[in-house]
């Protein structure tokens, strides 16, 4: 008895002192700081929570008289509908594969081509370098909607002559994504190559290594972080791209994820839980990729490398 009472008073005393301490700790600047931080974190995280939690709700929960803040049960209805082979909005697996088919080749080719180009820009002297760099910078200026009309007309013309379809052709999409990502990749890599001391390369050249040998044996191993971040960026741009895919793809079988999600959203009967399920599947890989490689990536982000 006495023991418990003692404990009670002691803990009350501690509580008081904690309250006291926090009261003393909280000053106006600290309060403003904490409140602003809280505001930022909730307004950033809530949409992501809402996306993921909505994807586990049922049709009844999604169209009820009030929003369901926490799903009573984490149901997979939306995902089942999304992968349903019978339904026109289903077969999302095909769309995931299409996105992968576009994003991975774009990333690989962009890394290879931009490495070669960036090395030349960073290390070699050649005529027309400034003209080249300036015209590559112009890419920042041209809106996608401006380029898509002539691109469409041009590729339709070439396609009619050579014999390929402009529409519903994932290869055409890869080529257009390369055009929009290569300039950025080239700038990023060239900036990185400049930070590698030229003396190391010169030593190898004097020892009889060829230029291409130098690139392969010396520069590339030193530039792995930059290569990784360029690969991730180009992958993300191709993975997320909307406008070109919207114009160039017509058949549901060839839709990349963004276009498929857009059509699901525009179904006559709204099914937000399915849209959110598809969005979750599209967002999670990108966010995880980003978190895993963040150290490489933020530097590139602040270098203004991502157009968006």
């Amino acid at each position: 008895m006495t023991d418990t009472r003692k404990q009670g008073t002691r803990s009350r005393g501690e509580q008081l002192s904690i309250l006291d301490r926090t009261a003393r700790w909280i000053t106006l600047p600290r309060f403003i700081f904490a409140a602003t931080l809280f505001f930022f974190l909730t307004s950033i995280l809530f949409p992501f929570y809402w996306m993921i939690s909505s994807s586990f709700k049922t049709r009844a929960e999604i169209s009820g008289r009030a929003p369901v803040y926490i799903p009573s049960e984490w149901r997979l209805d939306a995902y089942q509908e999304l992968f349903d082979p019978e339904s026109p909005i289903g077969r999302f697996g095909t769309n995931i594969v299409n996105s992968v088919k576009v994003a991975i080749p774009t990333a690989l080719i962009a890394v290879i081509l931009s490495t070669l180009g960036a090395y030349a820009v960073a290390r070699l002297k050649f005529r027309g370098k400034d003209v080249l760099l300036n015209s590559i910078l112009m890419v920042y200026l041209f809106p996608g909607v401006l380029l898509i009309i002539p691109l469409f007309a041009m590729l339709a013309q070439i396609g009619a002559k050579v014999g390929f379809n402009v529409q519903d052709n994932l290869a055409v999409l890869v080529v257009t994504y390369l055009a929009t990502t290569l300039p950025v990749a080239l700038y990023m890599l060239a900036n990185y190559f400049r930070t590698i001391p030229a003396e190391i390369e010169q030593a190898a050249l004097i020892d009889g290594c060829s230029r291409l040998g130098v690139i392969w044996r010396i520069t590339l191993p030193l530039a792995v972080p930059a290569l990784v971040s360029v690969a991730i960026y180009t992958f993300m741009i191709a993975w997320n791209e909307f406008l070109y895919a919207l114009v160039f793809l017509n058949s549901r079988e060839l839709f990349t994820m963004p276009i498929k999600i857009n059509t699901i959203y525009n179904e006559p009967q709204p099914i937000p839980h399915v849209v959110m399920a598809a969005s979750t599947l599209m967002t999670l890989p990108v966010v995880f990729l980003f978190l895993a490689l963040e150290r490489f990536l933020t530097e590139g982000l602040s270098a203004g490398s991502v157009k968006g």
Partner: protein
Amino acid sequence: MTATTQHKQSSFAKRWKSLESREGRLAWGLVLPTALIVFGLIIFPAIFSIWISFHDVGLHNLNDVFHAPFVGFDNYSKVFQDFAFKFQGRQSWGAAVTSIVYSFLATILTLIVGLIASLLLNRPFRGRGIARSIFLFPYVAPIVSVAFVWRWILDPRPSGVLNDVLMRLGLIDLPVAFLATRGLALVIVIFFEAWRYFPFAMLMILARLQAIDNTLYEAADVDGASAWQKFRFVTIPELRYVLGALFLLRLMWTFNKFDDIFLLTGGGFGTKVLPVLTYEFSFRLLDFGRGAATAMILLVILVVFMAFYVGIVMRNVDAE
């Protein structure tokens, strides 16, 4: 004697030249694939777009574009007379004015939010690393996902969460159709832009903040400056260049942006900006000439503004 030295010199020069040209040839070999793709798929199409804007190009003659009839400024005058384009008083701004208002306000708001976020993250606190990663989420996530999540949050049906929260708090009596109310829709779209793009501004400002010489603050402390005075007279001047550059970049990108508004409102309810109008002319009406003309008008507005900004505003900043 002189002849031999001359001979030596010229052969040396030749060798030097050939070495240089060999390097040049290698360089062009390395750049060529990138250069071809960029010129073929960006620079040439951009020039071709000017050509299209003066011709009657539609779906019927798309496979034979080069024989499309020349129509002079017809496409341009059609755009200027279009009700979706021209300003007709306060009720209906038209795409040009909407674009300008939207880009300016969205850019300024993005910069302000980015500045606040960078000031938050510039102070050391427990969990700062995680907070920084989280702050980047809106910028990293795919635009389609975040646009549709926001549409779903802003949904006017009873299951829309923002309406529910506001009604529970007693701030509104009836659900509001946020993205389907003229005026309000534009405000929401501007807020969305700030939500999505502030991390980019934040990162660039943060990098500059961390490079500010701490002795400046110490000197201000000695002079008895308040926190606000330190911010106003030390931090802001140090951030001048990065803010100026950010403003230009973000304004340019926002002005050119198609996806965000197209996905959020489809360009309805007073949010039709020039990129969306370009898309509609080209791929809804299938009038590519008119679409190209709209895109050229967009580009001209942008270039004129940039010339003005770089020539006058940035020079004044330099002079200060």
